[in-house]
């Protein structure tokens, strides 16, 4: 029964999980290699460039903090596209993609928060300020955790996928509103803020390692995402096989 309906839904070539597994197996070694390469290059660059005269050594935190913040937003975008795929095109891999991306996105967001906090302590003298950017990243983190919790709370994969997709999309249209309102709130509450995240325009000397690290992070994300998607497909396959085995035992008995 389940297998039949799966076969019909997975008719189109791209949507075929078996084909996806084959593609992932071919792609993953290359992705892993590229990720390692870029990380080595990025870290070397990050530690060979000179420290900023203003920020000193702490500028090196930027190379791991800023890409993590970028990735936290890109991951949500990937999830939103997957959610569209689930709801509009009923792509069978879309909900696998959304489910696999959520923990990765939460981890990157947490990384951005921790490294940002560690950067803020020597720079601003405090672990946390209710700055617009920090606050909206924190809200994003809460949303990731809520989505993961929701996905775990529903047993049926199909139903969980649809409901999560709806919430992901609501969140996606809400993120700009939240960002905007937090900025408004921030200017209202602390008009003469000493905190300036953007500071002077970035010197190309810092930009180079930053961009290399950003590429490395992006590659890392896609590597992990594809691997996690593969795990999820395997998990569903195991579940389907167990159900099938249980049924055939029933029939024999």
């Amino acid at each position, binding site marked *: 029964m389940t297998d039949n309906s799966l076969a019909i839904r997975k008719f189109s070539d791209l949507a075929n999980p078996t084909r996806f597994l084959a593609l992932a197996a071919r792609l993953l070694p290359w992705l892993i290699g590229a990720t390692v390469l870029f990380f080595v290059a990025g870290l070397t660059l990050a530690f060979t460039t000179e420290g900023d005269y203003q920020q000193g050594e702490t500028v090196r935190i930027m190379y791991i903090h800023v890409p993590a913040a970028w990735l936290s937003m890109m991951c949500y975008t990937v999830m939103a596209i997957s959610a569209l795929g689930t709801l509009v095109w009923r792509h069978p891999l879309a909900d696998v993609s959304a489910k696999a991306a959520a923990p990765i996105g939460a981890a990157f967001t947490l990384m951005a928060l921790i490294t940002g906090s560690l950067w803020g302590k020597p720079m601003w003298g405090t672990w946390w300020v209710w700055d617009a950017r920090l606050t909206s990243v924190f*809200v994003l983190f809460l949303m990731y955790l*809520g989505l993961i*919790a929701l996905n775990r709370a*529903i047993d049926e994969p199909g*139903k969980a996928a649809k*409901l999560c997709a709806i*919430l992901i*999309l609501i969140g996606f249209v809400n993120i700009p509103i939240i960002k905007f*309102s937090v900025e408004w709130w921030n200017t209202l509450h602390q008009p003469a803020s000493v905190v300036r995240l953007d500071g002077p325009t970035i010197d190309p000397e810092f930009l180079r390692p930053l961009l290399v690290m950003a590429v490395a992070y992006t590659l890392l994300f896609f590597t992990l995402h594809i691997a996690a998607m593969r795990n999820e497909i395997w998990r569903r396959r195991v579940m389907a096989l167990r159900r099938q085995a249980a049924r055939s035992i029933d029939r024999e008995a």
Partner: protein
Amino acid sequence: MTALFLRDIRLAVRAGGGAMIGVLFFLTVVAVVPFAIGPDLNLLSRIGPAILWIGALLSCLLGLDRLFQAEREDGSLDLMLMQETPLVLTVLVKCVAHWMASGLPLVLAAPLLGLFMNMDSLAIGATMLTLLVGTPAITFIGAAGAGVAVALPRGGLLVSILVLPLAIPVLIFGVSAAYAAVQDPAPFLPPLMILIAITLFFAVIGPVAAAAALRSSSD
């Protein structure tokens, strides 16, 4: 539609319907705050609008998971899914009825609590106005959460977690408009206008998302 509206209001107002419990919760939350921060009247009047808003937000969320639950239990949810009128419209009517039964009492209870908080009449009026404009937004966005909660065995808490981050803009503009009315330099109208815009925006996406969630959880 009118029949559904009236039925929902009657059900909510009846004893055990939950509307009065929401107001009671609101009263209790606001009454507990002075015990936490001390009986300093100046401080209380300064943070009064914020406390009223937090209390209203929490008590709005409290009743929301029941929005579709009763319908699911007695089976009328399936009727709503099958009937001629579009589900989005049904959900919208249910939201409005829910707000009339549980949001409006909060707005009416706000002045009384404002007096407890030693707020002056201008601040009370401004808070009431922002609550009147802002609580529908919470109901609408919460309806989407309630639509999701229908599929969960006990989804109330999880829905609050999911909806609260989305309600942050409402809180920000509600409170800042209420403060702007009292503090001189800050303009009152822009935050109020944005609050209205958010409410209207949520009035569109909330029912649409709730309808989609109800549909996907029923099949």
